[in-house]
């Protein structure tokens, strides 16, 4: 059973990709209006966590609910805005900024019906919110990486969602775009939207964050008041997982081949 009023809820969630366990023992409840950042090293499972929330990756065990409904049966997708992790907004053919942002409106439109005035207004507002109004008719492939990322954010904004989920929206994005992005997220937060954000570094967004979740090796290592970096958590909570300090922030599990001898030579006494 899901907690009343929760926006996203994962109970005892576990996820495997291609048989390899990626997430284990995830318990997470995100309530309305929360602004949550998910931090963690590469390979810690933070991207998989948000993809599980969106139903893009099935949970092997446990329960995932969106707005109180199991994600596999969830249909009210117009309430959700998603910004997937990627390096480029350009596809195999030319597409204009306006066209890509317009696909964010599809959750509110029926097939084979013409676009209405509110749709056009929402698309225009979304493009303006990320500061690309003068480039609406430009092809996306001519924009910088940061601008392309802003296009993807505008696409999610165009659906006017209550829940906004962003997977590393600021990775490799220039400072100007980061600011434009922080402004857009701030606007949503003030309107009372729930925001879940995967990030490596917060930059201009730091002041918006209300809660931080740190992922480590497929588990939630920290869940509480904001911290600036995953590294900070390691120092405050060192007693929980001493191995993390030893390996630094890019923690890689040591795996040994079955006949190659032990990976950790210290054990060979």
């Amino acid at each position, binding site marked *: 059973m899901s907690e009343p009023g929760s926006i996203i809820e994962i109970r005892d969630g576990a996820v495997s990709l291609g048989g390899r366990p990626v997430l284990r023992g995830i318990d997470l409840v995100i309530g309305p209006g929360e602004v949550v950042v998910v931090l963690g090293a590469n390979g810690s499972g933070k991207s998989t966590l948000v993809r599980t929330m969106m*139903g893009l990756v099935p949970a092997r065990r446990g329960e995932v609910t969106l707005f109180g409904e199991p994600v596999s049966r969830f249909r009210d997708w117009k309430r959700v805005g998603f910004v*997937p992790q990627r390096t480029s907004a350009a596809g195999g*053919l*030319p597409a*204009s900024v306006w066209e890509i942002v317009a696909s964010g409106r*599809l*959750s509110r439109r029926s*097939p084979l019906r013409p*676009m209405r005035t509110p749709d056009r207004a929402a698309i225009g507002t979304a493009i303006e919110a990320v500061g690309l109004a003068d480039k609406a008719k*430009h092809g996306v492939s001519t924009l910088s990486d940061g601008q392309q990322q802003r296009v993807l954010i505008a696409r999610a904004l165009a659906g006017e969602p209550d829940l906004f989920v962003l997977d590393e929206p600021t990775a490799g994005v220039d400072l100007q775009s980061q600011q434009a992005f922080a402004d857009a997220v701030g606007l949503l937060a003030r309107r009372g939207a729930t925001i879940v954000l995967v990030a490596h570094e917060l930059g201009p967004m730091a002041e918006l964050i209300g809660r931080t979740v740190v992922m480590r090796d497929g588990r939630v290592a920290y869940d509480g008041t904001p911290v600036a970096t995953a590294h900070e958590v390691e120092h405050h909570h060192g007693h929980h997982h001493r191995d993390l300090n030893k390996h630094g922030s890019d923690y890689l599990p040591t795996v040994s081949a079955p006949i190659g001898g032990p990976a950790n030579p210290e054990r060979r006494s």
Partner: protein
Amino acid sequence: MSILQYDFMVRALLGAVFTGLAAPAVGTYLVQRRLALMGDGIGHIAVTGVALGLLTGASPTITAVAVAVAGAVLLEVIREKGRTSGDVALALLFYGGIAGGVLITGLAGQGALTLNSYLFGSITTISSGDVWATVGLAVVVIVLAVGLSPQLFAVAQDHEFAKVAGLNVRFYNLLVSVMAAVTVTVAMRTVGLLLVSALMVVPVATSQQLTRGFRTTLLLSMVLGTVASLGGVTISAYLPVAPGATIVLLALAGFLAAWPVGMLMRRRVRLSAPFSPSDLHRDHTVAREDHEHEHGDDCGHPAVQHGDHVDYVHDGHRHVPHGSHYDEH
């Protein structure tokens, strides 16, 4: 003196117009999904369908549609399940389709000549029943490809986002595959199974050179496809050339004409694209001392935005005025 006084020419031109519209419309989504050769794969599979028709005495067009749709669905399933072996699966179906077709045609007691009219098209021998079937199927494909273009575009552009937008990604992917299969068999009589993929892909590649939006790419490629297929049929009415091959060569000629224009347009866009402002605080390097040229609005060197100022692109260097000299940026 008009070619329109011959019934078979009217039928051929009708078939050409609708194939010319439908093939690039579907091809646009195949190119966008980077599956440009899928039409070719389906064309090979359809050979088996034609042969089955010859063997059983059923209409080769109908058996070809059935086998091509089945093959296209199979391709889509294989593509969805095992990403890495997608092109190998395509190859297997390619060769299985054409070998099966040749084998079954032999069993049916027909020679390669019969198969030829399907492999390379024989637009001038289309019966009026065939024409109406072509027109009907092509209209359905065109209406779906244009009418559902926002959905199909979103799914091909970013399937994960499309899924979270509530679109049934699998349904739309299958729809494109089935439309491709129908188009291949519709175009079988016009350009032939071996060349149909060209009519699906080449007009799209041409229009992509000149456009910067998706919808204009789609519509322009449909116009180009129609021009090429009408032109090909008309030329073959006056000259002793095969219509199918003429259509494809006309489409390719269009690409050759558009390509340099596209190159120039892209070069201009690239030159004026702003430099990333992230490396503003680099070392201060002074340009060569004998830099006598004075950069300005009309100096002939492209002025490109770089953070809060403008760089001038000068022989592969980026120059910025700094007091009495120019800096390298």
